[in-house]
């Protein structure tokens, strides 16, 4: 395999892995966060506004890791610096 196709294969495969693993792990984390928030909501419905706000902020924190993975795989596919370097040569 020459370097052009090697870079293409590595980029595409790694983009898939990045999004795949980067979706799985934050999904587990978000599930745990939502589950414990729901059980505490059932125990203390009076604290609903505080729990909901904290839950939203925490979910956004967790989800941003998934977003980082998505951005990295988008860069690998659409704006790959190594690919651009090879193409420009």
């Amino acid at each position, binding site marked *: 395999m020459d370097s052009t196709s090697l870079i293409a294969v590595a980029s595409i495969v790694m983009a898939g892995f990045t999004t795949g693993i980067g979706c799985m792990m934050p999904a587990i984390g978000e599930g745990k966060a939502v589950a414990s928030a729901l059980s505490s909501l059932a125990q203390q419905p009076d604290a609903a*506004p505080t729990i909901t706000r904290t839950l*939203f*902020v925490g979910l*956004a924190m967790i*989800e*941003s890791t998934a*977003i980082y993975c*998505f951005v990295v795989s*988008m860069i690998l596919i659409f*704006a790959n610096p190594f690919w651009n370097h090879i193409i420009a040569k």
Partner: protein
Amino acid sequence: MKLSPDETIFWQYGFFTINLTLVTTWALMIVLIVAARLITRKLSTGITISRWQCMLEIIVTGINNQIKDIGLKNPNEYIGFIGTLFLFIGISNLFIIFPGYTPPTASLSTTAALAISVFIAVPFFGISKSGLGGYLKSYLKPTFIMLPFNLISEASRTLALAVRLFGNVMSGGMIVAILLSISPFIFPVIMNVLGLLTGMVQAYIFSILATVYITAAVHDSKKTAKPELVTNNKTNNNG
């Protein structure tokens, strides 16, 4: 495929470029300013108020209550900054209901500018509360060993703010664009509705996080100034 509206350039002369992001941002600012002027031109304190005034009152009261809930005692000092952030991001994400519109928050330059303004506003509010020395001492909390970590968290949370908003809005548009080529009729509409929801949630998150950072700076500095008065619970402020 275009990753960001920065790549649509209308006019270019040397260093200066006018691209779609700039045009949309200025159009949004004009819309916000004109709408605010039109609504607040004839405010009434009577029993019946106009519908637009009611909407504006709901928004302002809601933002004030949220700021107060997080722990800033006097929300009127901060609503100018936090409310502007929320309204700008919210409106720019809401306008994706118009066809052909690209939200300016889908460009990393806009979100980086917003995050940098938060980065500047945090020491601004902290210093205005307790002076330069009191604010700088808050970096030495709990001990001086934490100084590099405090500095790193300051920089990393700014980066996280920018990339989070950019990634969410950009991914919404990107998913719709990809789905349009696969199943062009109904499904992109549903994803667009989801994009509306995430857009509003991201606007909320961005302003809430800005409030949390400002609260941490203000309270930490106050603790340095008068240690006996404050008994608040420390909010976790790592981006």
